[in-house]
């Protein structure tokens, strides 16, 4: 039973859960009326993508990608490339969040609200 579950998780389950998380993030970005929550959901989505990349580099029986004396076999370590990539992506997400928050404060100053509906009602479309 555990074997089957493990096999299922390894083949599909983890990816499914990751995609669900990503889907929720995108859904939140689209459906939440509050801009602040949109930003939080954006972060959720980014976490999902980062995790997706990390799972690609996962290796059974591998350890952290820090070399230990005398062990240089490729099988012994987890793939370091996705980690390096995701470090970059994570920093980018922090930058984006910072800018988004600054924008939110500016929007609050101009419109007095950060609710999508209220802003749309104030003649945004024109």
């Amino acid at each position, binding site marked *: 039973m555990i074997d089957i579950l493990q096999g299922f998780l390894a083949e599909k389950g983890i990816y499914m859960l990751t995609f669900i998380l*990503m889907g929720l993030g*995108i859904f939140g*970005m689209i459906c939440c009326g509050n*801009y602040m929550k*949109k930003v939080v959901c*954006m972060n959720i*989505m*980014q976490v999902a*993508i980062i995790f*997706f*990349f990390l799972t*690609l580099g996962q290796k059974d029986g591998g350890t952290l990608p820090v070399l230990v004396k005398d062990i240089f076999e490729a099988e012994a370590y987890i793939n370091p*490339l*996705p980690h390096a*990539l995701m470090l*970059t*992506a994570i920093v*980018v997400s922090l*930058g*984006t969040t910072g*800018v*988004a928050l600054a*924008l*939110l404060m*500016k*929007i609050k100053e*101009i*419109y007095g609200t950060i609710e999508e509906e209220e*802003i749309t009602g104030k003649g*945004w479309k024109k």
Partner: protein
Amino acid sequence: MNHIPVLIILFPLCGAVLCPLISFLNPAWGKRAVVGTLFASFALSVIQLAGIVQTGEPVHYWMGGWAPPYGIEFVIDGVNGIIIVLVAFIGAFTSLFSSPFEEANPNHRFKSAGYYSILCFLVIGLLGLSSTGDAFNLYVFMEIVALSGYGLIAIGEEKGPIAAFRYLLTGTIGACMYLMGVGFLYSATGTLNMADLAIKLKEIDNTHIIILAMACMIVGFGIKMALFPLHGWQPPAHSYAHPAADPMIAGVMIKIPAYGMMRFFFCIFEETHPAAEVVFNIIGVMAVCGILFGSLKALRYDKYNKILAYSSIGQVGYIALGISLGNFYGLVGAVLHILSHAFMKTGLFYTSAALKYKFGIHYTDELGQIYRKMPVTGTAMVALSLSMIGLPPFAGFFSKWYLALGAIQNGQYFYVAVLIVSSLLSAIYFFRIFERLFMGEEKQLEDHYPAAEHGRKEVPLRMIIPVVIAAVMVVLLGLGNTFIVNNVLEITVMEVFLG
């Protein structure tokens, strides 16, 4: 070792990061650092293109000396060589163009420095986006472009922040989608280098993942280039951005992702792949809808920038149409349209910014008889608009010619009809502007910045030069298109894109 590919980026990069510090020491020199480095980068890009045309070989530059696929490399062939020239060209002149704007509000020392820094980063990002040969590096540059775009849109007019915020949300989804696509490709091949990806993808038979990656790429690049159903962020962003930076944002920022898309679909995915045909058809449908939608929507607005923004949606559709055709003439048309539309839209936004700068004009019904007060701007506007409609001998006509040629070669007569309809629709809204420009009632207009420009007829020379250059380039690009096609595109498109 030839360092030009990286120097093109490094010069403005140094200017951009040191601009705040230099401005702190001496406000005038911060600006000059950015403008100077951008012009240096433009000169270098021209040298680089000349070298590529002479040798006919793409230039490779290995970052850190690491051979691809282990390190990051820059690959510059004819097509992106010319696009780099375009970006550096427009970037340099836009930085020149924006200086009167920044002098007009000297209330804060950092304001000018920050503006130039962000603008410079936009240029850097676009340069990197077009020169990189690494899929993940492309993502990083995409984010640079996006972040600087958010900044320049947010510091624009009153609705700028909210336009920027919407762009931020949509743009992040786009970038993440692109990243997803790269993830799929990486999971299937284990490499990130584009050339290497192309080789590896030929070997694998896992079709699902290629389709998924293609879908993600379409969404990712589609959002960045404002392709039809994914264009929502674009009209507000282009209409409310900082007027001086708007030429760059509207003219170039949405074109380079189109080039990226082209590169992915022709260099990395095989265009003979069974899924490719479906994907190309989908892009074609999106393009057609975008062309018609953009042109129709532009008819509804009176705001000059909005009209231009919606027409951009249509024009990006032209490029996507060229991509979806997938034959030689279609691709040549798409690349030429990237070039010509960049100059047209940049020029039109220059005129828009000049109007805003001089008289604070935002709406076309304020344009009455403005050509008497600003003859150069008025003339440039006419030339650029005629090019947008696609009338000879301006550049817009010739890219349309190649697109139509490609469409008929593929037997897609419907696309030709769409091109024609779109030309006619754009003729309607541009001639409406002309009517107002030449035949509208003259309005009493007051100088927007009376203190800065007392008693002058036109806008300052630094703004006139870019306007004139854009208009001249549209003519030159039209009459000299075969120079580009024969010397640069013919070889590169055949070899790089169509294998």
